[in-house]
């Protein structure tokens, strides 16, 4: 026999759970920002002729935003990559001789990059609020692990506005870096191994390396020296903030590492002696307290 109380005690359904997830207005703001980014992606893809790709991205991305799918950004990125290369869905790709020359600061590219960053930022923030914000603790002794989420109360006022600003900045940086990368040439005999290309032709062949190798050198060099610089700065900062206990552990470990071969040998012999005496005591050949 069912009663009203029984009906009230029923676990919430799927729709209730989704509605509950976005009950907070700040969370809804993030959701709408992500959906806006997806809509912009669809429009730009539609304009490039990849309407199927745009639709796929929009549907998959929206489902991921609403349902909290962790893998949806990866699929969105892969589908986006595929339909950028094959706009009509099927190979072969069309080679464009003017793409490199006119491929910087195009409105459609800027909008696409901004929409993608906005979508990804909204998706990962929503994922942190609704599913998992930080990895589970290693299974330590005596406590259970539970997924940690970011409470919606911690969404600060103006967070969305700051995200928009950051998106604009990183889109600008991406365009500038690309413009620099494609305009560099390698000159092995010059004063500087890298220089800006004089001509702005379709194919620059003035350098000592082919264009793709030049781009590779530029991007890898940028990453390498950027990482080196960051490592230098934050490594020094880490040393500055090192606690006395950490410093002592560093010294202990270094001392152990330098002398471990001798110590292993000494301790091996010592334990051999201890075991030998214990065996003799056990066998009754030696009483405790007698000379060993």
């Amino acid at each position, binding site marked *: 026999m069912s009663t009203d109380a029984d009906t009230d005690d029923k676990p919430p359904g799927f729709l209730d759970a989704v509605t509950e997830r976005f009950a907070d207005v700040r969370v809804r703001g993030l959701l709408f920002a992500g959906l806006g980014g997806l809509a912009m992606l669809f429009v730009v893809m539609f304009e490039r002729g990849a309407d199927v790709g745009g639709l796929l991205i929009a549907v998959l991305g929206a489902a991921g935003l609403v349902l909290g799918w*962790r893998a949806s950004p*990866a699929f969105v*990125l892969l589908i986006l990559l595929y339909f*950028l*290369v094959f706009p009509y869905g099927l190979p072969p*790709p069309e*080679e464009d001789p003017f*793409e*490199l020359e006119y*491929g*910087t600061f195009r409105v459609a590219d800027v909008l*696409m*990059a901004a929409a993608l960053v906005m979508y*990804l*930022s909204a998706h*990962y*923030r929503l*994922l942190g609020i609704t599913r998992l*914000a*930080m*990895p589970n*603790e*290693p*299974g*330590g*002794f*005596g406590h259970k692990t539970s997924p*940690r989420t*970011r409470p919606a109360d*911690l969404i*600060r006022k103006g967070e969305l506005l700051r995200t928009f600003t*950051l*998106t604009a*900045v*990183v*889109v600008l*940086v*991406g*365009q500038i*870096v*690309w413009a620099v*990368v*494609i305009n560099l040439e390698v000159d092995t005999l010059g004063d500087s191994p890298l220089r800006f290309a004089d001509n702005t032709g379709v194919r620059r062949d003035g350098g000592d390396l082919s264009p*793709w190798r030049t*781009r*590779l050198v530029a991007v890898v060099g940028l990453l390498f020296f950027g990482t080196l610089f960051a490592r230098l700065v*934050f490594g020094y*900062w880490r040393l500055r903030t090192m606690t006395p*206990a*950490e410093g002592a*552990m560093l010294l*202990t470990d270094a*001392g*152990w590492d330098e*002398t471990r071969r001798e*110590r*292993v040998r000494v*301790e091996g012999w*010592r*334990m051999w002696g201890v075991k030998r005496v214990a065996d003799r005591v056990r066998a009754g050949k030696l009483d405790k307290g007698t000379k060993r």
Partner: protein
Amino acid sequence: MLTARGYWFLTLVALLLALGVLVLPDYTVVPAILGLTLLAWFTWEWVLFQVRVYGCATRLRAERRLVQGGREVPMVWAGLAFEVRVRVSHDGFARLPFVYLEDRLPQAADLNAGKNGVAFDITADTPANLSFTLKAPGPGVLRFEGVRVRVADVHGFFHHRRFLRDGIETLILPPFTDEEGRQRADKRMNTLPPPGGHRLRRPGSGSELLDLRDYIPGDPPKMIAWKASARRDRLITKVYESDVPVRAVLFLDTSEGVRLGPPGTTPLARMAALASGVAQAAASNRDLVGLTTFDEEAAAAMKPARTRIHMLGMMRRLAEVAALQPTPRGAPPEQLTRRAYPLAEELYPDLTNRKLNTMPLGRLWLPMLDKWWGWVVLLLILSPALTTSSLAYFGPNDNVLGIYPNKIALWWINFTAYFGNYLIRHTFVRSLDGFTRIFGALVCLLIAFFVPSLIGGLIWFIHGVRGWFGRKKVELVQRKRLCAVMAQLDGSGPDAVERLVHDDAAYAVRVGNFLADRQVRVPVPLYDELGRYRFRSPAKVPVLAGELVRAVSRARDNELYVILADLAELGPDLGPLEKAARVARARKHHVMVILPWPAGLPGPDDKPTAADALPGRRPATAATVRDALAKHYHEQFRRVRRALGRAGATVIRVNETDPVRVVLDRLDRLRGLRTRR
């Protein structure tokens, strides 16, 4: 620091960038631009996170306060809820937008209300305040380790873990009054002597008349019994009884055997709570109470007194001993590591960091010469060199001590030459010409000559490389890191690291202490290799007997000695205690022995329930074993009761009626009257 989500995202961006920069620009530059844009975004988030971690997370500080009864307290009472307030702040310049703080709960208390872990947004001006309520079930020591801090970015790409160590220990005093403030003692009859004294039938300055005697010059006039003097026609003087204080000395067993069990409910904790109840009830009647704690080796005594400071000291002592844990003697090192390493990783994430606490691959390599057959393999490896050296030194026909060892060497040279020739003739070397043929033939000869070295080297490599994989590697790495942490905590330097790695006994003691200090139960084996119970502790009987005799030698009046000890398994070893009890009884003192009783074990006089004795039903194996153990324990208990009863001591169980009431009744009997039921 990079989470799995961050790794996946970075991988996708790298793929996008690689294809966009190297392969696709002739078709479309958008992937490269998108890759660079996403990389710039990711880099910005990383830099921001690093700044927050180094600028703020390293400056986090925690302050803790305990509040009970509406005021801040230095120690808490067992059985009453108390509030823990933790304030975490930093003086950094940036904001930590997402920090998860979790106060590590002490083992001796349970969460009563609130949450001990909450997410915060912390700035220099807005610290995080964590508040929750705990309740300690029994007396002991409350140890707070500190606050677990987990910092993450809002996207979940990065993660940083710290532990704000704030190790403080607070005593959990045994309760005397319940939540409503009711005392455990009963109201006495008005005919009782004033609190703090009992009648001693000796002349003194008490208030009760003891006797009448003839007047002796010098007696105070106020002591003259005028009516009796008038009746007898001579001066009679009143003699009053003495009012002397009642003394009770509690002997508490703190040996290894009573420390076993879950925290807060060990026999020791229960006996400490009982001792506390007795002590406080007696103290409320202004009786003097002393406490002697003893184990297998030594005892510590507190003289009977009734001051407030003495009572607080006694509570402190009881709380300290209630938290004692068994020494992990004989515990396997692997089990200790499995318990201790996660704890060390949790409490000392900075010291167990693999960048600071390293384990080089060379240390994991398994040395072959530790085995006897390793020398055989070494001989195999060196055999070509030894053969050549032997021939070069002795010559092919030299006679050494009547034998010709180089015949073997010559045979070996001939065999390798034959084998090398075979290789030259039957491999691709045959098809080579000119210099390459000479080179190939030389290689074939060398291979044939060094075949034993190659085989031996392969055995050596396979044996050694096994140390890099598997459970053994994990155990060794964890043990070394744990030993380094121990060495760091002790300040014993690199010497102690390798010593603890090699010496299982020293490792067990040190890691056992580490766990015991943090109130983590150590898995101790209960039985030795011969199947004997390891926690019988017969050595505590002479110690207890010595302390009892010592207390008798210092006693003033009739005293009550309450022994709270686990003596059930010590029937044949109770001789010294019987003698000491006889000494005490000979001096008119009272001796009472209270034994802890295992939880769930029926009393020796309890009748079996109907479910246990169903006719025609075979009991399960577990029930049979349980019954056998119960019978054994009952028999031991009866033996102890008989032995000590003969010596004049009263033996009761902890769960038999109310031991506190029994002890107080006995104190009343000493005082001269019984309590009204």
